[in-house]
């Protein structure tokens, strides 16, 4: 709780940071466009005029969709992570706790194996993530009436492991020259193939998922006090829990469908937010969303311009996120926990 800044003071700063990072990122890339040309191109676009051929393509077909997609992915994963950490009252929880990413990965690699169109692969990824969590929830309910959080997590581990095994089987069956690299790179996470249409399709789903989390942020915060306390305060625990799981699953599955599996963000960003604004969920959630978006935009900029070939996002988030996480924990041991 120490040094926790007041939310109203911090939010505008975070919004400004996000916008700043996004604007800088829009000017960086392997295809060099000088800053004044970026501004000029944006201005011309706004008045409906055309730009010189490669600039229009690079900026509006390739780079800006990636910047927007990165912001969306980061915000979604951080929001889901924050929600799950509060729900499970455990700071080591990530959006994948119930097997969403593994299930989404399975759906996608099956799509690649079957040679389906890219859009269908994304849809299978999305469906695979949702299906996994529904199976986990049904299994937990059948075992222990659904009330026990521990059973839910254990069911998540089991179903996630099964999905992981199925992914390995698909890898063995896949054509090693075409499908296997596609599968491997897909599972490592990347925004290299993002199209403007992907952003347009994912944005509404993410908004639909984040909205209930934001609207119910006070009640979700009460959940972290424990079930009995929450009930005493008039919160309907199991229904609220179901809503949080559904919302967090929805946003995680939808972004995994366009970015592949990206670890660490959902685990680490809520801790950064907690250090900044304190552990209260109603403050931490908006801060997580903004930090997650800015962090992901910065990391993806590194991924697409750091080397001659694309660096997988999952690799970068682990390399940057791991040490940063340790440093955060060392700095603010007490306030880093919810």
């Amino acid at each position, binding site marked *: 709780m120490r040094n926790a800044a007041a939310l109203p003071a911090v939010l505008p700063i975070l919004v400004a940071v996000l916008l700043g990072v996004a604007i800088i990122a829009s000017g960086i*890339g*392997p*295809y*060099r466009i000088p800053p004044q040309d970026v501004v000029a191109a944006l201005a011309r676009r706004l008045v409906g005029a055309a730009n010189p*051929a*490669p600039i229009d*393509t*690079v900026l509006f*077909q*390739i*780079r800006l969709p990636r910047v927007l997609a990165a912001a969306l992915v980061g915000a979604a994963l951080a929001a889901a992570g924050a929600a799950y950490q509060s729900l499970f009252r455990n700071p080591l929880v990530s959006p994948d706790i119930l097997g969403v990413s593994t299930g989404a990965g399975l759906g*996608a690699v099956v*799509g*690649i194996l079957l*040679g*389906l*169109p*890219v*859009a*269908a*692969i*994304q849809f299978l990824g999305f469906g695979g993530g949702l299906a996994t969590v529904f199976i986990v929830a049904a299994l937990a309910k059948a075992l222990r009436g659904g009330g026990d959080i521990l059973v839910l997590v254990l069911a998540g581990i089991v179903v996630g492991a099964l999905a992981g095994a199925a992914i390995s089987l698909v890898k*063995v*069956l*896949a*054509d*090693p*020259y*075409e499908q296997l*690299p*596609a599968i*491997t*790179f*897909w*599972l*490592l*996470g*990347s925004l*290299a*193939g993002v*199209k403007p249409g992907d952003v347009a399709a994912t944005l509404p789903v993410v908004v639909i998922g984040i909205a209930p989390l934001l609207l119910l942020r006070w009640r979700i915060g009460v959940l972290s006090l424990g079930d009995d306390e929450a009930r005493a305060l008039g919160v309907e625990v199991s229904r609220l829990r179901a809503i949080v799981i559904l919302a967090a699953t929805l946003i995680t599955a939808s972004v995994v469908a366009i970015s*592949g599996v990206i670890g660490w963000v959902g685990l680490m960003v809520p801790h950064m937010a907690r250090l900044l604004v304190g552990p209260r969920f109603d403050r931490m959630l908006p801060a997580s969303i903004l930090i997650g978006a800015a962090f992901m935009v910065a990391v993806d900029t590194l991924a*697409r*311009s750091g080397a*001659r*070939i*694309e660096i*997988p996002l999952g690799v970068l988030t682990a390399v940057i996120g791991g040490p940063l996480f340790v440093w955060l924990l060392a700095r603010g041991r007490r306030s880093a926990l919810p």
Partner: protein
Amino acid sequence: MSMTVSRRLFMAGVTLAALALLAVPAFARTVTDSAGRTVEVPDTIARVFAAGPPASTLLYVVAPEKMTGWVRAPREAEKPYLQPAVRDLPELGRLTGRGDTLNLERLVAAKPDIIIDFGTINDTYRSLADRVQAQTGIPYLLIDGRFENTASALRLLADVLGVKDRGEVLAGAAEAIFKQVDTVVAAVPTDKRPRVYLARGPEGLESGSRGSINTEIIERVGAVNVVEGLREKGGLVNVSAEQVIAFAPDTVITLDRSFFEGVAGKPAWAPVPAVTNKRVFLAPGLPFGFIDSPPSVNRLIGLTWLLHTLYPDKAPGDLKAQVRDFYKLFYQVDLDDSALARLLDGAG
């Protein structure tokens, strides 16, 4: 718009072509690719981007002067077997769909006139081609990569790139190799054909099951791939040493030098007939693999090599001379005696 107009002019046979050429940088014509997609390509193509390793090899064979880069940069050992002009082209990465290692901005910056891919034709690759083409505005051509289709693939690409004569020569050579193989194999009774195990990996325990793209060439040369698959179109498999003994192959082809050099000393391999009879062969791989890696036109010389290795009494001509001719014609490099010896070292 101007493209359509100038195409109409062209089709109408208006003799203002020279003037129009000055006004419009490139004429467009339409090509139907192996996926049945109609792609509008410029008349003169100077720079081509290959989406994956098989396409890269096909492009190198047909028109090395039009390459913009490699999917994976050639290693030092491979460079002497490539034309000097392409040895140091940059590594650009590959397009695979969702998680490309290739950055699209870099693709645009490389300014290719066209992108080609050579391999499986299915909905994934069809939609990937459509997406990249829509996003970058660069025409994207899919070419069927089946081994049997090699001659047509050479013709299609050469035609698109405006080097029709070279395509005809290469396709003719490819057809001659296939024909030679078929003639030799037809004379060998089915029960006399070799039973081959393809040993991959340092332990030799990774293989490809019947019908897989990795072992396609073994079946094409009339041999029996001893690894039976779970399904019709096999893939890579891991097998146990015990299983290899049970398969009892009379010939082992390996891609791994350390396995090749150590296999005679491995007790587990001692009972395998191929090892007892000293019929373990190391497939050459410079600059491209003879068996696969990548599964592209490079496998043509692998067919010739396998023919000589598996049917030494029946294969016509001198293997070394044929390898030299192939490298001259397809890779446009002259192999001296030491380069040839290094290439075929261990090949039997």
